[in-house]
């Protein structure tokens, strides 16, 4: 039975670079995917593009392409990535520049566009899924609207001979589904196979999170050599079943436990994992260790797609002012608590305009709030205040109220930090798929 090997070279924009190099040098892969777009990244990138039309793609694109492009071309490994962010065409041009610098010839680069649906969303009547209101209600505060496209345009680009495919927003698994559909000739209404493909994509898209990254818990879950973590390879056969593995000798581990954790990562109903191309079913998946660092996953399924695309709307939401300061030694908890009380009172006295304020004791309750256990005082505590405001000036005031605890607050406060920042938030709407038109542009070097 025909099998193909797909490597996952990044699980987010700032991910390590060397594991991708290791994959192309030693992984015996035919495809390399880089998933680099978080929920909000594209909104921020759109913001950059508004200021500079040649910007708006992933800040590490050039570095990643430099690292892998020559060897991928030499070995015929195709690269698929969403590092195009808000500007896939500019990203393709930059990739062409890198290819030229490296003396690579005969490289075909495809830019997939069409995920930018800002105009459609501004004109239409689209209610938000997570917050009250509609896109139109936010008026000029809306800065981006990007639909999660499916694997279709990537498959087309591969069929058109692309060596590198650069997209903006697509469903993360689509980056890995596309080579399967292309290589095995699966139909776009073969729901079961598309469901299996979505499973493969879901397992690979976070890179090191399935090979032992984000997993270690000393004494309970021990993982070796995380400083040299190897990234995953999906070995997929024509029947759609997959073995997850990694380069021999690399750090980390591929075990049933690492694979189960990633199987359920960011999944709600495991029987209905909604993707642009299919509603995948992970509920019957079995996970079996098939050898050292080799885990077989079978039983993925699928149902017809919904016909709607999720769209991330990026909008200017508010500002956040934040300050932190640390206390240590005997009485640290009491002094940090006093610090918070002082700031609380200061915000009242000075009439700070906030819609929401949060007071944390880092080391005590900052992560789990009221659900934190009550216990003995820690040796050191960091007081933290964060408040939401309508203007940057108000946000700065909040951060200053924490910093000024240096000279006005409890004894021994140290290491103060402050920040005031604009918040670009993201909310989603659903768009009928026919309202997003994808297109492909090819560049030849």
């Amino acid at each position, binding site marked *: 039975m025909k099998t193909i090997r797909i490597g996952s070279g990044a699980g987010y924009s700032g991910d390590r670079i060397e594991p991708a190099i290791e994959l192309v040098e030693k992984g015996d892969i035919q495809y390399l995917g880089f998933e680099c777009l978080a929920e909000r990244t594209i909104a921020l990138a759109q913001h950059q593009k508004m200021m500079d039309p040649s910007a708006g793609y992933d800040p590490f694109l050039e570095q990643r392409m430099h690292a892998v492009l020559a060897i991928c071309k030499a070995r015929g490994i195709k690269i698929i990535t969403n590092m195009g962010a808000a500007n896939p065409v500019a990203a393709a041009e930059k990739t062409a520049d890198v290819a030229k610098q490296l003396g690579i010839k005969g490289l075909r680069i495809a830019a997939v566009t069409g995920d930018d649906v800002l105009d459609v969303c501004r004109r239409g009547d689209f209610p938000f899924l997570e917050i009250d209101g509609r896109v139109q209600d936010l008026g000029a505060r809306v800065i981006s609207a990007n639909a999660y496209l499916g694997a279709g345009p990537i498959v087309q680009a591969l069929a058109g001979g692309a060596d590198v495919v650069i997209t903006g927003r697509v469903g993360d698994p689509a980056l890995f589904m596309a080579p399967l559909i292309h290589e095995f000739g699966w139909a776009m209404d073969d729901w079961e196979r598309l469901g299996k493909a979505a499973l493969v994509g879901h397992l690979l898209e976070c890179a090191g999170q399935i090979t032992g990254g984000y997993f270690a818990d000393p004494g309970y879950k021990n993982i070796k050599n995380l400083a040299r973590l190897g990234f995953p390879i999906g070995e997929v056969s024509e029947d759609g079943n997959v073995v997850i593995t990694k380069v021999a000798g690399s750090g980390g581990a591929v075990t049933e436990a690492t694979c189960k954790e990633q199987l359920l990562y960011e999944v709600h109903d495991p029987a209905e994992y909604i993707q642009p191309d299919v509603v995948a079913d992970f*509920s019957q998946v079995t996970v079996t260790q098939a050898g050292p660092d080799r885990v077989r996953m079978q039983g993925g399924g699928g149902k017809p797609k919904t016909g709607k695309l999720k769209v991330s709307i990026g909008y200017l939401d508010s500002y956040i002012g934040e300050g932190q300061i640390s206390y240590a030694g005997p009485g640290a908890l009491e002094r940090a608590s006093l610090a918070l009380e002082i700031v609380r009172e200061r915000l009242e006295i000075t009439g700070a305009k906030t819609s929401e304020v949060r007071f944390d004791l880092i080391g005590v309750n900052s992560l789990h709030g009221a659900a934190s256990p009550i216990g003995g005082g820690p040796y050191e505590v960091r007081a933290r205040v964060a408040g939401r405001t309508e203007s940057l000036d108000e946000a700065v005031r909040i951060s200053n109220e924490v910093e000024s605890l240096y000279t006005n607050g409890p004894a021994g406060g140290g290491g103060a930090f402050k920040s005031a920042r604009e918040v670009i938030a993201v909310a989603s709407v659903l768009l009928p798929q026919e309202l997003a038109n994808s297109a492909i542009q090819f560049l030849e070097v």
Partner: protein
Amino acid sequence: MRLREIAHSRTGDKGNTSNISVIAYDPKHYGLLLQHVTSDAVRKHFAGIVEGKVTRFELPKISALNFVLEQALGGGVTRSLALDAHGKSLSSALLDLEILIPLSDGSAQHSEQ
């Protein structure tokens, strides 16, 4: 006994919704998870953090449960004031859940007492 002794866990986030998997190390403990790690128990454990519904999905083939916690991330990852805006550390809090082990005489006991 703490849940951590028999299960491992990972948190994921989408908007203002968190999901937390609870996976038995040994399939023989899946029954204990089913019995003790209920939606109710999870909702109570996260009182003050989770404002919405808690739904449990069962995955017997991998001896795992998946909890979906709505309105759990301070208004959503991209705008939350929280230090851990993604709620990534919630899995560790859930593993601290104390579960009662039934004894052979039918009574229940906290192993630490």
